[in-house]
Every structure is written in structure tokens, then in C-alpha cells.
């Protein structure tokens, strides 16, 4: 019994982390049609920057999270403005360029932070464990789930309840029509990229006390984000949220029950969805 509950909490925690990673990926993919294969690298970069700030300089955990989010966001916007904008509409070129940049970021991280994994300690507020129903739960893991749900709620409010959100939705549904209606789609694109990259960096650092930071974190996380977005449907926030928890559950239970087939179990549903329902569970079919 205990085993199952621990596994369930771990699944939800990973789901929360994946949501922060994949929400931005999904919006960028859904709105801008950019398959941003450097999203995992932004996640790893955020984790490294935050770890340096928090452990190296002794900066407060939450402040470090915000600063690393800001840094990855600015880097994301810089790349969007200088490189990706030149390749607008050429998806294959964007795939290759973002892949190339992810190689570069990975190698730079290796150069700056060396190959040794860095462990990050949880913030003071969330140290230790709380007992519910006679079982101990890590406060930090519960905290991550809470943060992810808060981020999800904030994003939902932003997208469903604000004027900017309406513009974003219009851009996802029909970018040409949105432009014709006078919506500044280009500026919204930059904003979305800023937001997505910030969330990736933020998520990377928030997850670091659990996952730790190591070279290869980017290529470990990117395929998971890809699975989430393809399951949930590109551009769908609800899809990202539900997809993240599904992947979190499949990953953790797969690892525990069928360790030899863990990745197969993870990627098989993605292939099935791509083949049977390419728009994802919650995505809208594209013409």
C-alpha cells in the first residue's frame, strides 16, 4: 500500500515538473508552429544557473528560481528574434536550428559546470516531511505539485480571462485571420517565447532538488515534453496539464513495474496518438 502511494506522489511531482516544462513548449508549438527542440536545454540551463546562484552565492531559493527564469527567458527571446524569425514557416529548418543550439547549450553547460552532477537542497520552508494518515510525505514534493497547479491556474487565467489571452487563442486558431484583425501576432510570439522559456528555466531549477542537475538532463527531459505535448495536443493548456500527469504516472509506474520496458511503455502511446489522433487528445484538428 505504502509503495503505491509513494509511487503516486512521485508521479504527480514529475507531472508537475513536466507541466512547467511542456506548457511553454506546447504554446510555442501550438501558436508559433515552432518545434522548439532546445526547450530541454533551457530547462537544464535554468537548473544550472539557479543551482549556482543558490548554492554558490547563497541566494534565496525562490529568488534564484526567478533569476534563472529571467535569464533563460532572455536567451530564448534573443534566439527567437535573431535566428528563428528568419526561418518563419520553415519548420524543418527550425527543427534543425533548435537542435543545433541545444548541442551548443549542452556543451557550454559542460564547460562551465563540468560533468559532475550538482545536487541542490530544498528551500528551508519545504524541508522535511509531513505525516498524513500515518505516512510521511516529502514537503518539497508536495510543494512542487502545488507550485505546478498554481502556475497552471495562472496560465489558465491569463489565456482564458484576459485580453492578451484572447489574442493568443486567436493566434493559435487562425494566425492569418488574427493578423488581419490587427492583433500584433509578432509581438505576441515574442511574449509567448519569453513566457515559455521562462517557465522551462523556472521548472528546471524548481525540479533540481529532486532530479539534481547533470549533463544529459536536457535530452532526458525533452522527449518527455514531446510525449506530453503530442498526447495533450499542441497549444492546449489543459492537454499539457493532463498529458503531464499521464506521462508522470506512466514513467514512474513503468520504471517500478517493468523497468526493462519503461521507455517502450512511455513512447508507445505517443506513437499511437500520432498515428490515430495526430492533433492530440485535447488539440483541435488542423486543416
Amino acid at each position, binding site marked *: 500500500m505504502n509503495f503505491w502511494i509513494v509511487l503516486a506522489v512521485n508521479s504527480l511531482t514529475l507531472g508537475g515538473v513536466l507541466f512547467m516544462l511542456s506548457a511553454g513548449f506546447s504554446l510555442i508549438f501550438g501558436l508559433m508552429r515552432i518545434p522548439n527542440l532546445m526547450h530541454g536545454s533551457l530547462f537544464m540551463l535554468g537548473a544550472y544557473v539557479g543551482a549556482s546562484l543558490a548554492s554558490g552565492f547563497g541566494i534565496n531559493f525562490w529568488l534564484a528560481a526567478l533569476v534563472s527564469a529571467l535569464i533563460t527567458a532572455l536567451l530564448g527571446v534573443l534566439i527567437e528574434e535573431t535566428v528563428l524569425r528568419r526561418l518563419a514557416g*520553415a*519548420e*524543418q529548418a527550425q527543427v534543425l536550428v533548435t*537542435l543545433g543550439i541545444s*548541442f551548443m547549450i549542452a556543451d557550454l553547460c559542460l564547460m562551465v559546470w563540468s560533468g559532475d552532477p550538482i545536487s541542490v537542497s530544498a528551500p528551508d520552508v519545504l524541508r522535511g516531511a509531513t505525516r498524513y494518515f500515518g505516512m510521511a510525505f516529502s514537503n518539497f514534493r508536495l510543494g512542487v505539485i502545488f507550485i505546478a497547479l498554481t502556475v497552471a491556474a495562472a496560465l489558465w487565467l491569463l489565456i482564458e480571462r484576459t485580453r492578451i489571452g484572447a489574442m493568443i487563442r486567436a493566434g493559435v486558431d487562425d494566425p492569418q485571420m488574427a493578423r488581419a484583425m490587427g492583433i500584433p501576432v509578432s509581438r505576441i510570439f515574442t511574449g509567448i517565447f519569453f513566457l515559455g522559456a521562462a517557465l522551462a528555466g523556472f521548472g528546471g531549477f524548481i525540479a533540481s532538488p529532486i532530479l539534481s542537475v547533470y549533463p544529459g538532463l536536457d535530452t532526458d527531459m525533452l*522527449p518527455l515534453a*514531446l510525449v506530453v505535448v503530442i498526447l495533450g495536443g499542441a497549444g492546449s493548456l489543459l492537454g499539457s496539464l493532463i498529458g503531464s500527469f499521464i506521462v508522470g504516472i506512466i514513467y514512474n509506474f513503468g520504471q517500478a513495474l517493468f523497468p*526493462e*520496458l519503461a521507455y517502450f511503455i512511455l513512447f508507445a502511446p505517443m506513437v499511437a496518438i500520432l498515428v490515430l489522433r495526430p492533433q492530440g487528445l485535447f488539440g483541435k484538428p488542423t486543416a
Partner: protein
Amino acid sequence: MTIRNALTAGVVGLLVLSLPAWSDAYHLNITSQILIFGIFATGLNVLVGYAGLVSLGHASLFGFAAYVLAISLEHGASHLAAILISIGLTALCTGLFAVLSLRSRGITFIMITLALGQLLWGLAYRWVSFTHGDNGVRLDSRPSPFGLSLEAASEFYFLTLLVFLLATLAVLAFRNSAFGAVLVGTRDQPRRMTALGYDVWSIRFFSFLFSGLLSAVAGILFAYLHYFVDPHSLALTSSAEALLMVISGGAGTVLGPLAGAGLVVIMKNVASGYIERWNFALGLIFVLIVVFMPEGLVPGTRRLLRKIRQNWGGAIFHRGVEVPQWPH
């Protein structure tokens, strides 16, 4: 063929054939690697260059063939049987890949091939009881067809050279055949080809199969070259490198993939001894090529040189920037 071309071909042929006489085993192995990845990239080029379908999971077919070979040998199959099993199963697997991925084009095609590649990588990496996971599978020996030994570096080099030439000739014949022309037609104008009565799906399917077959041949040679195969050969980075080979050399050209394979293998094996950050350099080359020379290094350099010459020639009023076009 002009005299100049014949002369160039003669000099290159002499250099290539005499290589074992003046080179050591290490450099022969590097050259064999370039040829093997040349075969692989030539296979991928059939899909990327001629069919216009970008696969980001092709290394998994290459690695699959290598694994099937190694595991068959491990379970006591003879070399001939293992090679046949490997080619047969890889063809089957390629067919499955094609059926699943050819429902789509463009970005969805890339994503499906990536997902399929991850699937096979996941099996190689985690199915430890069968594949030995991260430890990989070792091979004991190379085959000796008709009593000819292939154990020495020079002997294996000649084998890879022979196979590379055969593969290139096969692709050349393929490209110049009616089928090749039709395939290029489906790349540029799929709707018109359908309207003309061609079965676009089948054409793409058989091209995919051909591409997978060349990948399988390369994968088998790769396993024999190193007496070893591990999950990294199926990883996403390997698929990306293969794509880089094709695109850097020039997609849709016959010898471009070999040039690209040379670039990547030399960067990886030789330059990494001098430059510490070769992975960074690889990524940078990737970005620069995609942004500035999407048609590949050789044609791209030629275009840039022409542009510079034109600008120096005083055509100030017509300095139209020639923007390389990506297929949308």
C-alpha cells in the same frame, strides 16, 4: 567526361586505393568510418533529399540492424545467417516505420520518426536482459567470405570501400531511373503527381524501404568495424548527426552525404583531439549551415562566392539578397 574530370577521378582513385600502403590502422579505421557513415547518409539522403521527408529517427534503423546482427551472432548464428536476419528484420522494421509515419508530412513526420526512434532506443537501452543495456553487445569476429580474411584494418577498409561504391552506384541508378524522377516529383508537387495518376504513398513507401536497407547495410558494417554496438548508436543525437551529414553535404546530391559524413566523423574523431569543444562546434556548424547555406556546403559556398564576385563587379543597383529558400 572531360580530361580534367578523368584526371581528378584517376588521382582520387589512386589515393583511395593506395591508402593502406601509406596510412596506419587508426587512420584507416577513421576512413572506414567515414565510408560507413557515407553509406548511411546516402540512405538517409534518399528520404531527405529525393523524397523531401526529414527523418529524425533514422539512426535507430542503423542501430537496429547492428543490434540484430550482434545479438544473432551472440546466440550462435553464423555470419551469413546473422547478416541475412539483420537485413530482413531491419527491412521489416523499416516497413513498419514507413506505414506509421507516411500518413503525414512535414513536422508531424519528423515527430513520428523521432518517437519511433526513441522507442527502439528505449528498448536497446533498458531491455537489459536481452540487449545488455548500456554495456552494449560485443562481436567476436568478422566474417571471412570465400576464405578472405577481414580482420586487418586494411582488409576491412577495402570491404567498406567496395560496399560504399556499390551503394553509391545503386543510388545513382535509382536517381536516374524513372522511379527516381517520379519520387522527386512527389517531393515537389505531391498533388500534381496524384492528379497524374501516381500512387504517391507507395512511391514514398518503397523509397523509405530502400533508405532503410542502406541504413541496415551501414549498421552491419559499423558493428563489424568496432566489434561492438551500444545504445548510443540509436540515440536522438545520432539521428541528428546523420541528418547533419546529409544537410551539410547537400541534400539531394550524390556525393554530398559522403562529404557531410567526412565532416562529422573528422570533427568527432580527429578535431576533438585538438578542439576541446567539438560538440559546440558541431552545433554551431549545424546552425550556420541551416541559416546561411540550407542547400549544403558545396553549393552554398559556390553561391556565396558568386554573390561576392557580383557585388565586387559593381552591380550596386542590383544587389538583391539571394535568400536561400526552405521548403514550407
